[in-house]
């Protein structure tokens, strides 16, 4: 994945607020990246652009050697569905669907049959260690369990990139460590993992730490895995 001179400006005319000032970033397959920075630095905006939730004001974007030039909503939705698995700080579950259905939900939009959806969701829930919680509603799960469901859901489409926005922000330190171990394991299995965080100890799990300040990359360093 390659970003060239990405800028993002919110608003129009005199109310223009530039958020990103020319980001150049190359992410290889299988990397484990932490994006750090204080709030208001533009790290969330960058994450939204990487995750196709938003599109840049200028600059180009390449995925697997292909330039994504269209900002058409339906194309972005398809890219999200096929290439990105999201994990959010607040988990974001469908409250009336059980864990299995929540995990299977992205596959509905990929047009996959119900039998295969259930099959894949079961496999992934087993992988994140929730094989005995499949029929539970989100309200019956702990925060850590919910985040595992969310990670299983992010994986169900077999995406290129797992994009996690403050995934441990709502969890205690012990559960956070478990979730981060799960991310590490996924990365070791070959997934590209990008985590947006402001916590040093969370960023320490990553192999590459990118720091953003005032819409620019101020630091980009590789670290030896701890």
């Amino acid at each position, binding site marked *: 994945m390659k970003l060239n001179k990405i800028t993002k400006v919110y608003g129009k005319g005199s109310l223009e607020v530039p958020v990103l000032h020319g980001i150049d970033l190359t992410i290889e397959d299988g990397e484990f990246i932490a994006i750090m920075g204080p709030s208001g630095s533009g790290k969330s905006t960058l994450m939204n652009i990487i995750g196709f939730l938003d599109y840049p004001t200028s600059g180009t974007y390449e995925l697997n050697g292909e330039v994504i030039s269209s900002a058409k909503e*339906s194309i972005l939705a*398809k890219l999200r569905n096929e290439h990105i698995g999201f994990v959010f700080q607040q988990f974001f579950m469908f409250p009336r669907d059980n864990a299995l259905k929540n995990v299977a939900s992205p596959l509905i939009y990929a*047009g996959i049959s119900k039998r295969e959806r259930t099959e894949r969701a079961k496999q992934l829930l087993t992988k994140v260690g929730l094989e005995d919680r499949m029929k539970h509603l989100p309200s019956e799960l702990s925060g850590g369990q919910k985040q595992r469901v969310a990670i299983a859901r992010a994986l169900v489409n077999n995406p290129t990139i797992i994009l996690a926005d403050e995934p441990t922000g709502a969890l205690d330190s012990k559960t956070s460590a478990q979730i981060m171990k799960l991310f590490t394991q996924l990365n070791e299995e070959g997934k590209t993992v990008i985590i947006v965080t402001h916590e040093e100890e969370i960023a320490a799990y990553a192999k590459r730490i990118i720091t953003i300040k005032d819409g620019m990359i101020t630091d980009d360093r590789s670290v030896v895995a701890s």
Partner: protein
Amino acid sequence: MNIWESFKIALSSIWNHKVRSILTMLGIIIGVAAVIIIVAIGQGTRTKMTNEFFGTDKNAINIFYEYIPPEGEEPTFWMEPELTNEDVQTLAEVPGVKAVIATNQGFGMMVRNDVQGDMQITGVGAEYFSARKIRVQEGRAFYAADNDGLNRVVMIDTVARKKFFKESENPIGEIIDLNGNPYKVVGVYESPIPEQFRNKDNGEMMMPRAVISMMFGNREIEQLSVIASDPEKVSVTGRLAAETLTEKKGLEDGKYTTNSFEDYEKELNKMISLLTLLIGSIAGISLLVGGIGVMNIMLVSVTERTREIGLRKAIGATRRKILLQFLIEAITLTSLGGLIGMGLAAIGTIIVSKLSPITATMSPLIVLIGISFSAFIGIIFGILPANKASKLSPIDALRYE
């Protein structure tokens, strides 16, 4: 994701908010039920009135005499002109006239063996049988010679045959007594009057009208009507026949005229249509208000589910799919309301039919219209909320508290 998936999501969403959904549907339910009951009652009334007034003979029209007093004078005693077989012949030749029915009435006590009963007697000519499509069950119909030769013959209807004759007996050629005079039975016929209006006790009979005139002292032709060959032109044909007759008789202080059933039927239809329209528009307003209620709730629902929409978008739902999901939800809501309303209307029509003499009928067409119309309301009032939902940006939607 196909329509069926959207429909299932819509159903579970409606099910999850049962009370709210039913309250939302209430306007649609009442509207649809009202429209269908009113239309059903209207149709029932129309059918009943039409049957009562026009019987089976919709293209027959009465011709009667109207006295016009000379100008400046008070109406005085007047006599209706005498009508003859020749006049009947003249009317039969008027263009557009298929047949002429000329009758008179008699009333008498019929006696046979130990059985007796009061009988309504219709005096007819030979042309009556084909004109009114009388079915002769046994024996024969009257000939023209019966009228001309003043033959003392009668025909009895099936009810009278049952009363005065045994099943095994052959009534043809039998002599019966009417007001003390003997008459010969030549035929048995099925009465042209609809079954529910027949005299069920004694039945009725027919006689050549000249014989009635002779035996009862009545005028030979008391009622005159023509049957038009084109049912659409009953009024025109009737008026032409009346004018022809007036001219032929050379009348100065009166004329022949028609009282068109068709005009009456038009009035009746107009009245029923007006009533249906009036109540229909009230019901229509109720549907409109119901539709606005649906829109309102859908808008609330979109706001409430902003996060759900954001999440669906994040996991790959396109704008179109979100739009479809909410539109299907609105359509499901209104169609369900329409179905419930239809059920209430079905119960309503049964109650109306039981309690009143009107048979309210729910036609399949109106059921179809009712369901498609409520679905249509779902589309109309669901489009705005669905569009709003589809246009939410996933980032804003996920950030929504």
